[in-house]
């Protein structure tokens, strides 16, 4: 007979509890900070942060729309985590994916699904470098990823500036500092809304990208848990030496894992910029979307299915954050995210304490 595990030994439950705990601590910290900075407006700020996401169907549509790229960046970071790599380069892969998607859409006039494929390729190319440099030259993947984030940003700016048809100015607009609006350049490259906009009160944000992202999350879960390849990747992450001893080609797996992680981030970039509502503006600093994949992955404990929920949460408070302006800057949200990441750094300790508390309760119950 299959016996139910005791509460304290249920790893999944402990992981969820510790994530909820770090979210609560993060939110309380953020609220206290707002109270200190501007006590008079803090109430408005906090309620804007917590309720904007469900204040209207339009805003809820925005939450779903933003959660799709976040989910993919989270999947990317989580996938690399499983192989024991820290993919801080999701931002660069995301940017490269966005660039490839836009090139496909504007330069080659491809339909949206081929543009998304281009995005995957772009991200994968950018993911090769950290993996390859780690496997061949023993360069720490964190440093490589960070350097390639910067290289990507400047390279994409340089390429945009030298591809005149890509710019908005080639399609009847006056500004040359951003990519062309897809509605003018290639309406076929815009990700279809499939009637969702009617359902969401004519929200300009919503499209099927959220559902594409969920499908990808399920696919990643399948690869990690139901295939030999996924097993090998996880073995490398848990103990590289032992997996080499067992006959697994660790270097090949490191490179492959980073390529897949890159493709995931790249797809995220494609989903975000092919919605038709946003144009790529030449950036002076690295896009934050990829970095926000880190808390998404950490909150989900790198579980692909958990990523769906954690990306919804991060997207939700970000939509709330932009509604906090002008009373507070939207960066207040980043502080909350930072607290959540900080707590995730010693999540093992928190989980240990939670297990102790739960099993302690159990013993008391038995005594009583």
């Amino acid at each position: 007979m299959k016996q139910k595990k005791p509460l304290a030994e249920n790893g999944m439950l402990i992981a969820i509890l510790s994530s909820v705990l770090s979210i609560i601590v993060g939110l309380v910290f953020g609220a206290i900070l707002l109270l200190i900075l501007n006590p008079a407006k803090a109430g408005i700020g906090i309620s804007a942060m917590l309720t904007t996401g469900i204040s209207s169907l339009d805003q809820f549509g925005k939450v779903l729309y933003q959660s799709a790229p976040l989910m993919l960046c989270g999947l990317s970071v989580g996938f690399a985590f499983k192989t024991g790599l820290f993919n801080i380069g999701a931002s660069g892969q995301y940017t490269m994916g966005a660039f490839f998607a836009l090139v496909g859409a504007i330069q080659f006039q491809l339909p949206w699904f081929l543009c998304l494929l281009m995005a995957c390729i772009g991200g994968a190319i950018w993911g090769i470098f950290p993996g390859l440099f780690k496997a061949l030259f023993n360069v720490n993947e964190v440093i490589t990823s960070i350097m390639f984030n910067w290289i990507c940003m400047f390279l994409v700016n340089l390429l945009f500036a030298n591809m005149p048809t890509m710019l908005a100015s080639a399609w009847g607009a006056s500004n040359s500092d951003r990519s062309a609006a897809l509605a003018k350049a290639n309406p076929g490259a815009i990700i279809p809304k499939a009637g969702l906009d009617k359902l969401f009160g004519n929200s300009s944000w919503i499209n099927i990208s959220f559902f594409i992202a969920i499908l990808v999350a399920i696919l990643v879960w399948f690869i990690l848990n139901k295939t030999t390849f996924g097993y090998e990747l996880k073995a490398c992450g848990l103990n590289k030496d032992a997996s080499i001893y067992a006959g697994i080609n660790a270097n090949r797996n490191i490179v492959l894992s980073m390529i897949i992680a890159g493709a995931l981030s790249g797809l995220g970039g494609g989903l975000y910029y092919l919605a038709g509502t946003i144009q790529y503006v030449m950036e002076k600093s690295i896009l934050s979307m990829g970095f926000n994949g880190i808390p998404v992955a950490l909150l989900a404990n790198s579980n692909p299915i958990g990523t769906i929920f954690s990306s919804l949460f991060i997207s939700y408070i970000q939509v709330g954050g932009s509604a906090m302006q002008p009373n507070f800057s939207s960066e207040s949200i980043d502080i909350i995210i930072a607290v959540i990441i900080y707590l995730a750094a010693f999540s093992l300790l928190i989980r240990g304490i939670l297990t102790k508390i739960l099993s302690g309760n159990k013993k008391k119950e038995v005594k009583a």
Partner: protein
Amino acid sequence: MNILANIISLTIVFAVPLMLVALGGMYSEHSGVINLALEGIMVIGALCACFTLQGFDRSGFGPAHPQLAMLCAILVAGLSGMVFSLLLAFAAINLKADQTIGGTALNTFAPAFAVVVTWAVQGQGLTTIQIPNWIRITQATFGLPAGNGFLDSLIFKYFYLTTPIAVLLFFVAWILMYRTRFGLRLRACGEHPQAADSVGINVYKMRYSGVLISGFLGGIGGLAYTIAVGSGFNASVGGYGFLALAVMIFGNWKPVQILGASIFFALFKVIAAYNSSIPFLPKLEGLKDKSSLYQMLPYVVTMIVLVFTSKHSQAPKAEGIPYDKGTR
């Protein structure tokens, strides 16, 4: 000739933050803690120091005693960086946290905190903190007549108190690491903490010292960077903390080589920032947005250099691994 003087002095003023922060990273890593939070520490140091300078400017103390005020600002930068690095030290040493994730948390926190606080102090949307112009050391500081010759450009065009202090801290680092008991013990904790502990060295204490010193240097580095850029503090240090980590790896975790590496990278950074006014660079006619190309250069060069040096890198063996007394 004046252009050459400009390039040299600019290179020095950009090398100062790189070297300080890379030295900071060196202390931390030799003690066994990877300090990815240097970027965030720089931001916090620069934030506090810039507010201090602004305060001195308003109160009139600054213009009256510019270098004394500057010295105070440098100390504020160092101390605030130190306090901020305590967060990393606590997580990495006491809680045995993942050091990379902990560092990422601090890097996320610092720029957001800087924007939020700057808004709160200066008003909504005013993100830039202006730096007063009296902080520069001029000929007048030494009672010399103002001039425009080669030596004047070379020495006085970009001369700030951070430069001599950086030179001082460089020698301190070299002596401390290789000529004192403290340095030997610090390095032991990064190489083999169990062995260090078994001969009576308090590993936790040494690691705290390593991280706190790196916080001090990182904070000063943040101020030095903000001064070098010259357009005020904007809640960012432009990835210099990460570049400094690359400099540290290129410099093989050794002070003298770090000095060389930081000058090398600073030169590329200067070429990137001032490519239009340097006459001997290729013109690249027909290419638009050349500045992006030049701005990309330091990072590309970093990668190439790391590819060639990392195979034989002498990284501290125990870096990144939390020390648990039970593993002794």
